């Protein structure tokens, strides 16, 4: 079989997606575990770069944890593909049953990701003031 890779957006105007990448997993509190749609994960802020001055720095505050990271340009971009079922109406494909053909559509491109590769730092503060956004360079 042959699956065509289509792109409706053209080369110049492919919408850019963003990626936030961190090590491990983010675990929602048990009370939300059933349905996490719409749930707040954390707060992203720009920050002075933790290590090199050339890269843009970010902090990501999740609960009482703060992560320090950078914006990384991918060496090879990632294309976001979406599988689509196309009803091959026009007759002479493979005769009967194979009425459905699959197509891949390019719906976006990822050129950068915000990468948090260090262990999170615990925010030492009194309980639930999540507004506390300490912007600090990451310490080893």
């Amino acid at each position, binding site marked *: *079989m*042959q*699956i*065509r*890779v*289509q*792109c409706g*957006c*053209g*080369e110049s105007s*492919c*919408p*850019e*997606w*963003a*990626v*936030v*990448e*961190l*090590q*491990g*997993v*983010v675990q929602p509190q048990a009370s*939300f575990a059933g349905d*996490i*749609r*719409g*749930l*707040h*994960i*954390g*707060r*992203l*802020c*720009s920050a002075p770069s933790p290590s090199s001055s050339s890269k*843009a720095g*970010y902090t*990501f505050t999740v609960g009482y944890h703060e992560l320090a990271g950078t*914006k990384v340009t991918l060496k*090879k*971009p*990632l*294309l*976001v*593909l*979406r*599988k*689509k079922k196309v009803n091959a109406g026009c007759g002479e494909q493979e005769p009967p049953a194979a009425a459905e053909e*699959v197509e*891949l559509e*390019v*719906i*976006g491109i*990822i050129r*950068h*990701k*915000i990468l948090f590769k260090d262990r999170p730092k615990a925010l030492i503060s009194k309980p639930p003031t*999540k*507004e506390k*956004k300490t912007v600090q360079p990451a310490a080893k």
Partner: protein
Amino acid sequence: MDAEMEDAGAQAKIEWDGGGGGADAVLGLAGGGPPVSLCYHQAFGSHDDIVLLEAADDLLPDLLQGRVTVRGRPEEEAVLCTPSATYSMKFVGTSNSMFLIPPGEPSAKCLRPDSTNGDANVVAATIKLAPGSIELVRTAPRLDKLRSLLRERPYILDEDLGNDFEHMKGLYTWQNLCKLIQASDGELLDGLNTLSAVEIDGFWRTVDANSVNTILDMILHNSVLHDWPLNAMPENDVLSVMESDGFTHKIVTHCLNRFGTKVEQEARSFWSLDEKRVCLQFAQRALGAGKMKLANFMDKWERSIPSGMHADLQMLEGEVLCEKLGAETWVHAFSVADLPLAPADRFAALFRERPKWEWKDLQPYIRDLRLPGVSSEGLLIKYTRRTQPSAEAEPIFTAR
């Protein structure tokens, strides 16, 4: 990954229009934008119909302009084909959490756990966690299958295909081949040329050896009859004479292409027959499938070729093997065109034929092997053991 990607799990799916993520806010943050609240999209889910494909910059134009296809049968490993190259597709998983954030205005504010997120009125939403991405690695086209398909039913002169579908078994159109063969269009066309295939009535066919011999004989016969020089046969004359003998333009042109080259001169087309290719065809005919003593073979071969042409054993590199048995030298057909195309299989077949190879014999049987990123030297090191009894002696290659 499988060529046929499985269907997205039929779980309760939430309609998602492909946007609502606010990617721009995340990407623009470094430029001093306001803090962004990241939340799960209202349509967050596994979205198995979304995959990430890693593509180097030089592949982007082909991908974004619809010139790329994924090819393979469900039971084969899928490959991705640009117009001229083939890439294997490998899924590489990640243990990191990769939150994918689509573009577009975020549809709803983060509602939970509560809406009192203070000043964070800029919101981005993640639609899914990516389990990994597909990497592309340049690979050799998989053309072994093309050869076996096209040999199912070679074209025979005066064949009668009939019109009903039962007779179409073993016949393949270009479209059929694109679905069956894991190679780019360009490589597929090269493969068809290597097989000396020809498109007849919409089907790509190899031509049966006896039929080729008949046509070649007829061309040579007519060249004597009509005084056409073998290095400048006038195309129009050849085609019309052959047609009156009952051969179609298509098949005659195919044979001229196979055994000669076209030369344009003073607005007329001429064909020059290639001595080596013509002599090789006669050698294969003289030898048949069995073994012959070299002297007998040379005698038979030299007597069969058109006058003016000269037979030389060198012409048979990669087609015929000589073998010393006692005082006699014997020859038998052993054609590189019948050997597997994948290097490991090729070397295995060669060492089944002969446990030891000298370089001059081996070289014609491996020179067509090309793997992206591997030199022929590299192939030799990988698949053979080289021994050289003394510095002057010819190196000998044995199986590893």
